[in-house]
């Protein structure tokens, strides 16, 4: 495998000779987890790859593919019963997989930095930020006194992009935003200028624009120091954009590896092809191509996109009748935030928002976290009172709904599906009870009819009827989200409010659920309010798009207009932040 180092022209020219030296060699690595009933279950099954000095390599795969396990095995931090069962890992010529606990402690942090996945859970909530950076410096022998550690910690944090680091050292993680915390974690990972940085989905939990800024910054820092980067991600576009070499993992094995551009342009393995096809950032682009070249579209083995386009066209026609089915006019929502004592601040979460949704169409509402889009969902669902303005559904002002009976009637019409398929299903309720619960609450049908309806709903969301007696814990994320959709459909609603309904799912599963949603819309004539932070997903399903920023709508237009000709600077920023936007993809 010849290595192209063009992306990593380091500042130190002396490093160039060094750059062909292998920094990390993983040879036939095997990792297993001991379980009580099945013995050792393999998670990584013979993985080989080489990462050279100064190079960036990305491991791509869906959850459960073994990519994070591989990363953790390298620094011997496997969770629970995980164990390396075969193979070896060489770092800078030394076999670190054969090191004892003390030796590997000396390598971690000092020679191999680690940036973990979720900034919310990876900083200890009971210690302040300064402490957590300082202890890293002291553990790796980079600071000898307290004041020295403090000064260096400030420097580390400033380099990681926290300009006001000095004044924020004494603050705790919960006082930082997700993006700030990730900067702290990147700072910690790079604090001792390691030779290798392992970044495990470093930005998956962040908004796209924040993601872009942080990854750019990370790339700059590692380029300056000539650090090799092992990048773990589920996002193919992101991987292709950030790494010159790609390793695609599936069920614990490497199915394809090579130069990023080659793999994306011409994926060989069927799984890689599916991954390329399903990546929303890429799929949306193909949708455009297919509209023009209709002949090409019929060749597609993946039925997903063809049907979606057809439906999109039908929807457009249908949309012409039933204008302004949902009318949101000048809606505001303010919260009172207590500041301790008797002081309080007003916080405007939604600020004079107006738009209309036509019957049977999908309105995409896009924005970063904190833009007020989820608050808007709560208002739409009448879970919280409006502070100003009005929302009307089918000509009826929802503010005028009074009393339990009218409210129940409203609830039958408007149903939600929320983001977290793990949190929104009661683990103690089996699937049949979960789906039947709205029917029980609204006293619809006899218990026999309710059971029949549950079966019908399971059919609609393409789940086997045998699922009825199972529990949420036994289902995968995608299956749970189908159940959540079935529950929302139980009352035959006309409107679904989908609040980040596919954001927690893997790309392939995401594609399936989106396909299901469009199918259901077609069949049942549903109106969707589709809330997401992911512009690429919106492009697949929405007829019109509202872009929200800080509680206001900055742009409303048809989906095509927003994507082809974004008027507002903010929309342009969001669009350019979609990973892999500038790539040409094969299929």
């Amino acid at each position, binding site marked *: 495998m010849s290595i192209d180092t063009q992306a990593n022209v380091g500042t130190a020219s002396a490093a160039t000779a060094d750059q062909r030296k292998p920094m990390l060699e993983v040879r036939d690595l095997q990792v297993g987890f001991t379980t009580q009933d099945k013995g050792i279950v393999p998670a990584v099954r013979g993985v080989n790859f080489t990462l050279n000095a100064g190079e960036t390599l990305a491991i791509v795969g869906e959850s459960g593919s073994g990519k994070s396990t591989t990363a953790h095995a390298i620094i011997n931090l496997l969770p629970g019963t995980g164990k390396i069962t075969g193979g070896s890992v060489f770092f800078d010529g030394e076999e670190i997989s054969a090191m004892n606990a003390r030796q590997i402690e000396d390598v971690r942090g000092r020679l191999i930095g680690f940036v973990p996945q979720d900034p919310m859970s990876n900083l200890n909530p009971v210690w302040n930020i300064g402490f957590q950076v300082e202890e890293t410096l002291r*553990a790796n022998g980079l600071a000898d006194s307290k004041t020295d550690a403090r000064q260096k910690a400030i420097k580390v944090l400033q380099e990681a992009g926290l300009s006001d680091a000095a004044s924020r050292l004494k603050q705790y993680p919960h006082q930082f935003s997700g993006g700030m915390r990730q900067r702290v974690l990147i700072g910690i990972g790079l604090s001792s200028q390691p030779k290798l940085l392992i970044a495990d989905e470093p930005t998956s939990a962040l908004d796209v624009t924040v993601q872009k800024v942080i990854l750019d910054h990370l790339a700059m820092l590692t380029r300056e120091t000539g650090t090799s980067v092992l990048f773990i991600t589920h996002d193919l576009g992101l991987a292709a954009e950030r790494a010159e070499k790609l390793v695609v993992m599936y069920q614990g094995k490497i199915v394809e590896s090579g130069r990023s551009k080659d793999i994306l342009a011409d994926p060989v393995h069927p799984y890689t092809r599916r991954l390329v096809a399903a990546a929303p950032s890429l799929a949306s682009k193909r949708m455009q191509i297919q509209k023009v070249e209709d002949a090409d579209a019929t060749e597609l083995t993946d039925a997903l996109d063809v049907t979606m386009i057809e439906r999109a066209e039908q929807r457009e026609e249908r949309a012409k009748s039933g204008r302004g089915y949902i009318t949101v006019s000048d809606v505001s929502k303010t919260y009172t935030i207590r500041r301790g004592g008797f002081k309080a601040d007003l916080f405007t979460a939604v600020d004079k928002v107006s738009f209309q949704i036509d019957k049977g169409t999908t309105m995409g509402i896009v924005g970063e976290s904190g833009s007020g889009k989820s608050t808007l969902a709560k208002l739409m669902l009448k879970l919280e009172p409006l502070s100003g303005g009005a929302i009307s559904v089918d000509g009826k002002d929802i503010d005028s709904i009074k009393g339990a009976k009218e409210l129940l009637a409203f609830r039958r019409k408007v149903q939600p599906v929320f983001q977290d398929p793990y949190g929104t299903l009661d683990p103690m309720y089996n699937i049949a009870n979960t789906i039947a619960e709205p029917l029980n609450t609204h006293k619809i049908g006899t218990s026999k009819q309710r059971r029949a309806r549950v079966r019908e709903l399971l059919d609609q969301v393409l789940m086997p009827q045998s699922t009825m007696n199972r529990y949420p814990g036994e289902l995968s994320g995608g299956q749970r989200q189908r159940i959540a959709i079935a529950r929302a459909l139980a009352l035959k609603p006309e409107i679904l409010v989908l609040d980040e309904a596919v954001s927690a799912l893997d790309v392939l599963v995401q594609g399936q659920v989106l396909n299901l949603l469009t199918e259901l819309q077609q069949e049942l004539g549903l109106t969707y309010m589709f809330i997401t932070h992911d512009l690429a997903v919106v492009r697949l399903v929405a007829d019109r798009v509202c872009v929200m920023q800080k509680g206001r709508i900055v742009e409303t237009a048809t989906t095509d207009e927003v994507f082809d000709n974004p008027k507002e600077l903010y929309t342009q920023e969001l669009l350019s932040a979609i990973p892999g936007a500038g790539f040409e993809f094969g299929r």
Partner: protein
Amino acid sequence: MLWFIGRRLLQMIPVFFGATFLIYFMVFALPGDPILALFGEKTPSPAVVEQLRAQYHLDQPFIVQYLLYLKSLVTFDLGNSFSGRPIADVMAKAFPVTLRLATLAVLFEAVAGITVGLISGLRKGKFFDSSALVVSLLLISIPTFVIGFVLQYVFAVQLGWTKATVGPQAGWSELVLPAIVLASVSFAYIIRLTRTSISENMGADYVRTASSKGLTRGRVVRVHVLRNSLIPVVTFIGADFGALMVGAIVTEGIFNIPGVGGTVFQAIKQGQGPTVVSFVAVFVIIFMVANLLVDLLYAVLDPRIRYAN
């Protein structure tokens, strides 16, 4: 922070009056005549009975009795028990003994319970852990008086390491064995609580991140696991301090300790409203102060609470 403490202190006032009122009412409603009970088998002359009733305000309606009692409480003149000793004296004798006992018990359960729980949690599923679980289950399921008698027999009677019963002074060293008996059940609960908390935190993301920073295992456990795991344990210990004081009656009986338990038990049996309520009032205050301290400690351990509005 000051506002928080002030608010909590203000909240204590209604709790205090509510609790004393309820207890006073319950003692009042107990069947039997406390004055007649004083004379046992003998039949006193009606004049003496009348005079005693008047002296202790027992001829007044309930609400007047309660208000008179409150007045004496506020003026710190608690009056005499029915046997003629000043209530303040009775309390001054009994409370320090039980306070010493409960303090030793809390120290024991905290130090031993957290230590065993920590080792168990770090070696989940290993021999030490399994043994600790079995022992703690035994301690929880065996009644305190059985444990009390067994330990008393083994350590005091057979081995002679300590005295079998506690003298009237009830000094610290005499109270060690009774304190262990008193703490045994809580000790078992703390082992389990700490164990669960530790093993849960060992799997936390920030613990893995701490290891990835190059910290030694010892430091990771001390700095990043233990402190976070102690938050629920501290809550338990704080609430337990009050429970130990009130629940000491069995242990005090076994070791013949002149503490609060026996005194209150006698007073309830004799229907001595003022004595019972005076003790209960102190219990209520101890409970509330312990709870306040727990909340403050909680804020020290967990900055998210400290800074939440």
